[in-house]
């Protein structure tokens, strides 16, 4: 653990695709236990930023530091083992396997068989999918698949969780449950959440970072962000809040 309590830091992180600069020289920093929201219009670079953090993309330049350690050279599975979990924008789950198997595979990675079984049952209980244990994940509703993925990520016992649009495709009721779950997770895990749902961000009352054209436009509390003229111009002005 870094002495200054910083869990994640990027220095000059840049990702180019040919002439397009999707993430442009981003200096980002957040503390242990923090809950941070990333917002910004489509194409602002939020998902690309996540993919750079988990090495699904190799950053063109810049550094990623996790608890003070430079992890820029790590590849995806090593980053996962360090304790960064991610829920991708399009749910990345094992569609051809049962809910139980999905969670079990996550639990078994770092636990012995017997413990893995116990943890799997506990997690399925926690995400409220007990009635679907034996169903194939591919046959579940979109919202439920999101929950399965959340369960998979939680089971990995990460120290930092990246959530890319966790409430997409969920009903109002499900959004409420997700909000409660995120609050609960945040008691001992740091989170970065990409969301478009302003009500949701208000509800989890987080510090907000606004991305625009691959760069950080502003960082502030949600209340101040909503009153920020520049943010309104690039983003919120286009959407009714």
């Amino acid at each position, binding site marked *: 653990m870094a002495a200054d309590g910083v869990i994640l830091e990027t220095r000059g992180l840049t990702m180019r695709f040919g002439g397009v600069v999707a993430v442009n020289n981003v200096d980002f920093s957040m503390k242990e236990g923090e809950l941070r929201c990333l917002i910004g219009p489509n194409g602002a670079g939020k998902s690309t930023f996540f993919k750079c953090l988990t090495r699904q993309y190799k950053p063109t330049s810049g550094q990623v530091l996790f608890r003070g350690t430079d992890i820029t050279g790590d590849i995806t599975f090593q980053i996962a083992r360090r304790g960064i979990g991610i829920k991708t924008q399009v749910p990345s789950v094992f569609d*051809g396997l049962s809910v139980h198997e999905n969670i079990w595979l996550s639990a078994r990675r770092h636990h012995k068989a017997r413990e893995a079984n116990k943890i799997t049952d506990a997690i399925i209980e926690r995400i409220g999918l007990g009635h679907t244990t034996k169903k194939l994940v591919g046959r579940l509703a979109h919202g439920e698949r999101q929950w399965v993925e959340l369960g998979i990520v939680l089971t990995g016992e990460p120290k930092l969780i990246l959530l890319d649009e966790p409430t997409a495709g969920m009903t109002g009721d499900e959004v409420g449950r997700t909000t409660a779950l995120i609050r609960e997770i945040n008691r001992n895990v740091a989170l970065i959440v990409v969301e478009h749902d302003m009500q949701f961000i208000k509800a989890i009352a987080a510090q907000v970072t606004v991305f625009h054209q691959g760069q950080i436009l502003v960082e502030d509390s949600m209340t101040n962000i909503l009153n920020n003229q520049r943010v309104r111009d690039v983003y919120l002005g286009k959407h009714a809040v």
Partner: protein
Amino acid sequence: MTGLLASGWKFDPNRHGTWAVAGTMIVLLFVLPVLEDPLLLLQVRYYVSMIILALSMAFIWGFGGIMCFGQSMFFGLGGYAYAIAVGNIGESTAPFFLSMIIPAIFAAILGYFMFFGRLNDVYVAVITLAVTLALYYFINSTSGDEYKIGKARLMGFNGISSIRKFNWPGDPKSFLTANELFYFSMGLLLATYLGLKVLLGSKFGRVVVAVKENELRAELLGYDVRAYKLAVFVIGAAIAGLAGCLSINYKNFISPNAFHLALAAQIIMWVLVGGVGTLFGPIVGCVVLLYVSFILGTGAASGGGMNTYFIFGLIVMIFVLVIPQGIVPTIRDWREQIGRYRRMIGGGLLSLSDQLPAGHGEGMRNLAERLIGVMKSESGPAPGAGTKG
């Protein structure tokens, strides 16, 4: 329909018909020699070696998701490794193991570059095909005296003939009899089949299936998918090498044709026709297609036959268009479908019989209960069940 069978894989004999398949093998193991038909035993040994080859492909493609277009290379390497080693050593124990070790080492090197280099599936198929053909042309051009390893000449396109058969370990003079060779081959088939089942039910196997299902997620869980794919590839190569070794003990001969495109393509057809994602399917596919080839072959010999590859091409086209899942998964789906109908009709009859006044509709009720009840024992739990392990 990806991963339909792969759902919740673990060693669960009742669910996956493992005991039925293994039991059949055991029965054949004991019954066939009793018939005292040496030709039949010889024929079965040939099928057994090919079935083991089919299983190697069933494993790496159907469960590992690795589309190896040149599985024949490991078959050929295993055969040549045995032939050359036994020619030098004059005893078959070490060569038997070398027939698996050499292909495994070769696969480890080739696979390292493919999987750690992050090549996608299409390139893996192309490269493996290219390598098996390269080996084919290389071995073909080694007929000169200068091409030899130790005492054993490679013999080029002529092939190596009169290769020593298996002897009892440590006793080069006592060869295995025809019956013993049969027991040995059949025993190895049984061991391969059950071994793969156990492997697929273990943590390793379940992760392998997960990697096939969603490589990115497996990696985000912290699994090194490159290493898992490499391990699958190497295990598949060793099994194919074993098949090559057994096939030599059947015909005492190996030629560069072991590496040929014709065999490489046939292995894929066996799996495709039988059912990708199962072990039993490719066994069925292998036996059926070998038998078809046998019939066509004898037809051709008598002058009235058709081109085997033409027919095979036709069969594959029909399967891809009509039963893309392959024989075994399709039959299983039918059975599940029939099960649903029976339960539906049974349920309907049951509620109908409830409407009737007391004392009537007993026959109907019995029929309904039979329709529902029978299926309960036949269909087993829903897909994805039984993953408590």
